[in-house]
Structure formats: C-alpha cells, structure tokens
C-alpha cells in the first residue's frame, strides 16, 4: 500500500472514530495494523497471536491459507479483545473494505468492553498466552515434544467443558488447617519455624486433605478444573498445561456465548457509521455490495451476522415506535441489549414471530435416514429449537458425576441429555483422551434411542451397557 493511501486511511480512521463516539459507542483504544495475508491467516487460525504450538493450529492455518490461495474465502479483519485492542487489516483490502472493517472492529471492541459476559475477561491476554507459550515450549524441551503433544491432544478434546460462571461459585471449602493459617494472617517470615520448636508435631492425618476427591461439589461442569485438581495420575507440569488451556478457554467462552449478538452489533454499527461518512458514489456502491454480502441469508444455514443484524434492527424499530418512548428510545434499548444479553437470552427475548417469518426460519431434520426435511415452522418451536441448539455454546453438557466411582477412583461422567444424542463414536474416542488424563477407568452415561447407555473405557477396551 502506498503512503498516500495510508494517509487517506488514517484520515478515515479519525473520522470513523468521531462518528462512532457520536453514536455513543465506547470502545477501548484500538491499534490498527496492516498485515500481509500469511500473518492474517496465522492470527486468525490461532485466534490470538503468540499462542503455544500444536498441530491443530497448523491444520487450521493450512486450511485457511489454502482457501485464500484458491480464492475461496477471505478474512477481512481480525480483532483481538484486549485493552488496548488490536485490529488487523489485510494489506490487500481496498480502501472501502478497510473503512468498513475499521467501523466493524470498533463495534466489536465496544461490545467487548461493555457486554456483561466479558466483564471478567483478561484484557492482557496476549501477554498471558505468550507466557503460556514460553512455559509450553519449556515443557516440550524437558519432556519431549511428542509427550506434550499427546497430552495436549487429550486436554484439547475436552477444552470446551469448563464452567464459564466459575467465578460466581461459592468458595472452595478449605481444610481447618488452612483456615487457621489464614486467620493468623501474619506475613510469613523466614524464621517462622523457630516458634514451632518444642511444640508437639502436628498430627498430619486428620487435618490433611482427604486424598480422594470429595463429593460435595459434584456434579461438576468444569471437567478441566475437576480433572486438573483430582486426577490420580497427572504430574505437576501436566496439571499446569491443563490450567493454561483452561485459562485460554475462559477467555474464549464469552466470545462463543455471544457470537450472534456480537457480529450483529458490529454489522449494525458498521452500516450506521459508513452511512455517515459521505462516501463518493463508487465507494458507496462498493460498500453496499460488501455490506449485503456480510448480512445476507445463506440458504439452509444460519448466518450469525444476518440473524443478529436483523434482530437488532427490529429492536430499534420496535422501541422507537413504542408508546411514550419516541425517537431515541430504540437506541437506548439497543445499548441495554448489548450490555446484558448473550446469544441464548438475546434470541429468547427478541426473536419475534414477525422476524421468524421474515427470515423464513424453520426446523429441519433427517427423515428416514435419507432426506433433510423441514418439520417445523411454528415460530415458538423454531425459536426454542434455536435456543436449545445454542445452549452451552452448541456443545453437549457433560458433568463429572463421581470421581470415586466403584470406590476405585474411577471417573464417572454424565451427559445431561436434553433430547439431542451424542455421536457415540466420537464420545468413545474422547473417553480415550480423558483416560489419558485421569489414568484410571472412565465412564460416560448418556442416552441413545431413549435408553440410558453407559460407555466404559478402561485403557484397553471399550464396553457398553
């Protein structure tokens, strides 16, 4: 890109900021950077720059880059939720594309900053993952690359199974000894043990933690946390790897919970901002073309940009015309929605009959093992199905039901069945991975064809009953 174009872009950037602030958007500061395609795809496939190494990232990178090389798909932007945030623009974007992307990114960053589900998000995540990456390569150096890779294969197979609401849970019950220590509340000194001279040795057994995992916190949704804390077989460095993966997942979960709302929000604002920019005719045309490409229905699928965008527009219209609200009422409502909702509540609260009809939403399923057929058009049913599919960001809800199953420290997992069956072939493979982490027999209870089924894996063979 030539310097003149950069100058133009910087001018546009200033203007876009002004318009965005005028609308009441309140993003973190953003550092925009132009990068070549390879870097774009690299950041895109890792979701954050500088993360640890694993072949699955390489696979994603290869896939994205190949698609790009063959002209099948293209990422326009990548945005990183930190403070300050980062917006990456592709070098080869046209000026209009870049303006649209900048406006879109400001929408995302405003959302990151103000949506409640991000209130706990680590805003220095780039530094955190880079520290993780350093530790990971140290483990690779110490224990061997293949060893770490096998462990990561296992951890990543259950990485989504964390509890996003972990922070609002009650305190971990502590042992009396820890309580006593806390009460003492004296900063520990180097010579503290002096005071213990002459005292009878504290009997370790009653106070020491029971080695067996306690049952009082079960069922536990956070598989990573539970296994990391209670696995009978993991070494410290392995628990540390689990903790790192878990921490990174904690960062990503809010994004997974708000995909539709977040994309809708960013698309809504890029459209509003771009309209204020006084673009020349040819740019306006290009923008209209781009915008309609972003927020268009994909037949037979759900485009989150489209769905979110439509619902937000509908909200604005409805609240603008609401009695006693007057103009501006819609805007105010929108800002409330962006603050308190996630995808599930957003859809449940604001997907109306009219929208379902306008978007022609329907439920479809496989009939007679052969034909994907539309089976439901009633809007409440459609909405409920959509909400149910988004629950737990689309993943089956699995909990630890027992960490001492058979009185033998076996791990008993339970799938909270709500009408959708597991892919049991995959589940068996995941059980093998879980066994790698737990080190003792593992079990999974689920439902197949309306019957309770238990899958067992003891490290050598699979059983089912």
């Amino acid at each position, binding site marked *: 890109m030539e310097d003149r174009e950069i100058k133009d872009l910087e001018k546009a950037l200033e203007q876009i900021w002004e318009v965005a602030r005028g609308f009441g958007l309140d993003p973190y500061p953003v550092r925009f950077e132009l990068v070549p395609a390879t870097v774009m795809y690299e950041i895109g496939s890792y979701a954050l720059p500088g993360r640890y190494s694993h072949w699955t990232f390489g696979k994603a990178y290869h896939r994205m880059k190949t698609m790009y090389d063959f002209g099948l798909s293209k990422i326009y932007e990548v945005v990183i939720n930190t403070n300050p945030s980062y917006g990456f623009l592709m070098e080869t974007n046209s000026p209009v594309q870049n303006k649209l992307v900048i406006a879109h990114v400001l929408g995302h960053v405003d959302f990151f900053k103000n949506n409640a589900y991000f209130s706990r998000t680590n805003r220095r995540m780039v530094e955190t993952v880079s520290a993780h990456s350093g530790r990971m390569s140290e483990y690779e150096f110490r224990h061997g690359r293949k060893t770490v890779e096998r462990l990561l294969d296992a951890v990543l197979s259950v990485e989504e199974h964390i509890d996003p609401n972990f922070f609002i849970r009650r305190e971990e019950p502590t042992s009396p000894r820890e309580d006593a220590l806390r009460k003492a509340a004296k900063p520990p000194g180097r010579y503290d043990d002096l005071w213990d001279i002459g005292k009878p040795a504290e009997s370790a057994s009653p106070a020491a933690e029971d080695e067996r995992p306690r049952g009082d916190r079960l069922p536990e949704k956070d598989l990573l946390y539970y296994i990391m804390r209670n696995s009978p077989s993991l070494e410290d460095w392995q628990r540390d790897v689990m903790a790192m993966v878990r921490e990174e997942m904690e960062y990503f979960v809010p994004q997974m919970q708000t995909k539709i709302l977040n994309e809708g929000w960013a698309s809504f604002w890029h459209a509003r901002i771009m309209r204020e920019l006084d673009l020349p005719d040819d740019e306006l045309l290009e923008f209209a073309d781009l915008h309609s490409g972003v927020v268009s229905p994909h037949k037979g699928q759900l485009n989150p940009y489209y769905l979110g965008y439509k619902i937000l527009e509908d909200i604005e219209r409805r609240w603008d015309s609401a009695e006693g609200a007057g103009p501006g009422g819609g805007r105010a409502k929108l800002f409330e929605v962006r603050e308190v909702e996630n995808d599930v509540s957003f859809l449940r609260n604001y997907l109306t009959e009219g929208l379902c009809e306008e978007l022609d939403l329907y439920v479809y399923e496989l009939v007679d093992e052969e034909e994907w057929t539309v089976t439901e058009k009633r809007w409440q049913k459609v909405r409920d199905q959509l909400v149910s599919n988004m629950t737990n960001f689309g*993943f089956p809800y699995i909990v630890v039901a027992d960490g001492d199953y058979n009185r033998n420290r076996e791990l008993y997992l339970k799938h909270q069945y709500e009408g959708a*069956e597991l892919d049991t072939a995959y589940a068996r493979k995941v059980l093998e991975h879980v066994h790698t982490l737990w080190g003792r027999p593992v079990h999974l209870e689920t439902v197949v064809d309306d019957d309770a089924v238990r899958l067992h894996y003891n490290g050598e063979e699979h059983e089912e009953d």
Partner: protein
Amino acid sequence: MSNESNISGAVQRNDWSLQRKGIIDQERHKERVKEAIRKNLGSIVSNEAIILSDGRRTVKVPIRSLDEYKFRFDHRKRKHVGTGDGKTKVGDVIAREGQGQPGQGQGPAGQGGGAEYYEAEVNIDEIAALIFEDLQLPFLEEKAKKAIPAKTTRFNEIRRTGVFSNLDKRRMIMENIKRHARAGGSARFGQVRKEDLRFKSWEDDNRYESNAVVLALMDVSGSMGEFKKYIARSFFFWMVRFLRTKYDNVEIVFISHHTEAREVTEEQFFTQGESGGTVVSSAYQLALEVIRERFRPADWNVYPFHFSDGDNYYSDNEEAVRLADELIRTCNLFGYGEIGEEGGGGYRRSSGALLSIFNDRLKQKDRFIGVRIDDKEDVYPALKQFFGRRGVEA
C-alpha cells in the same frame, strides 16, 4: 476522556517477515498426516484415487485418524434451524443425505456429519517410498551373465576448477563474502573473482545388480468381476512401480489369460477386459516358454506372479499343479494371489479353488507364496508377503 489520548491515529505496519509460527505448526500437522498415512497404508494402497491417478502426482485420500475428537452431538439425529427464501413449508426436502448436507453456522460442534473425515493430499511418490521401504525381490541371486552395472552419479566433492554448469553458487558467494571480510572491509558480496569460484565435482558409483525378470500373469476370464480385476490391477500397479523405482534392470513380461494365454503390452494388460472360462495351465505353459526362450534361469532371476479368482476348469487342475511345480523349479519365487468375492472375509471355498489345491499338492513349497485377498485392504499385506525380506544372504 483518557481513552482518547491513548488512541493512536496511525495505522501501523510492522515487519512480520520473521513470523513463522503458522508454518512451523503446519509442519507439525504434516508430520501427523505422515504418521497417519503410515498407519493407514493398508487402505491407502488400494485407494481408487491412487490406482486410477493417471499420472497425477498428488491425490486426495481420506484419513480417519486426523479428526479432532470432541464430545459432539450426532448430527444426523439432531434438529437444526435454517433460513429459507421466504416460501419454505413443512415437508419441504432441502437436501438429501450424502449430497452435502446443509451446513449450519452455529457453534463449532455442528460442522460435520457423522461420516466426516479428513482428506489429506498425498504425493504418490511419497506413499510409494513408504510402501517400498521394506520391499525387495526375494531370493535374488547373482547370475553368471549380463550383470549390468547400475550407474549412478554422486556429487560429493568441491573443487576450484570445473565446468561452469556445475558451479556451486552458494559456496561461491560464501567465499566471496569471506574474501571481502578478510580484506578488511565489511562482510558483503561484491565483485566476483576467479578465486571465489567453487565447482561441484562427482564420482561415478557403480552398483552391480543381478538381472531379474518378473512375469505378471493375470486372469481376465469372465468370472473376474469389477472388484477382482480392481484388486489384481492395484497389486500389479504397485508391483510395477516398485520394480521400476528400486531396480534399474528388471524386465517385466505381461501375460493375460482366460482359456488361452497371450503376452500383451503393459497398457493392454491394465485396461483389457475379456470373458470366457479359465484354463490356468495355459498361462503357466506360456510363462515357461517365455522363460525358456528369453530368460534362461542360468542368467536371470525369474519371478512369476499370478492373480486369479481360482475358478479353474476342474479338468485343468492336474496340469496346472504340474506346471506350477515346474515353474517353482525354474524360478526364484512363484507367487499366487487368489481373489475372493468382495467382502467375503471369513468365507473360504474348501475345495475346487486353486489356492487350496496348490497348498495341498505342490511338491516344493519353500519358494511358493500363496495369498488370499478378500478385501481391498489385503493388497498391502499381499505386497509385503510377496516382496518381504526373505532369502537374504548374510
């Protein structure tokens, strides 16, 4: 607002040229693919995409073990939500199973159907290298005559003089930079002088190899259906490839037979379909003649390999066994592959089929290998059995 002061109005551009992470992890992924290919050679060897590759160098083959396993819902048993064009009604069929199901853009869990697997792009030469790693012509003997040297050239030396086509540019540049550095200046590349030039030089490397001839015999009678022909073809595909890559002078003679046998060209051998009954002895008779006339065992290592469904005329069995015994006497190794019905795994024909007759009645079995193939995946083991390490003199 304090934020405003933080916003840098500049669009940055940094130098990312040292950024290699994606590429490094892509290598890790490639390694996994290779590993998976090694583990799945059995199914890859008989993959249509490769056998019918028609000279393409890379093909796509499905590899199951590269999936990223997660707890996920059974895509086929689940209800999905989609958007239509405004006129969708209950009962509309929006797609058929197997013709690319409608994807759904929600959540990473819903990306795949049950039968989804990773398709790896593989280079046929790389696969071949993996397969041929442990294969060789067994019982290879040094024959008196015509041991033709297999000449290879190895570049293994660097000299200051030589032919310019063999100029080692990299070394030349290094020498040039060193010279400049020595001369007190900075280490840079400039004005090339004669003393900078470095040339690669070579040595001839003569390996002596014994003569060998492989007779590929294939049953093309009416009872050889699509599947059976495919199996025979894939075996010979790899065999021919293997012989051509590993041995510089192996002759291959192609003989196809039904009730009569004839010598055919390679192309005919791989494309021809015939019909009619099966008289195995005709092929053996022709093979023996070819050996007698052109490849005398005193001078040649001889390897006949025969593929058939074993459905020989009953009256011919006696003769077939006699000639097979004769073949074994004249040859280094006689291989016979019997192809069963597709998926006929556990099923064995008790009598009548040639393989069991060979097993019962052949006099010298130490240089006879008979295998049965019921499944595509059996091709690779058959290759390994025919060309496994055997009879290697210490």
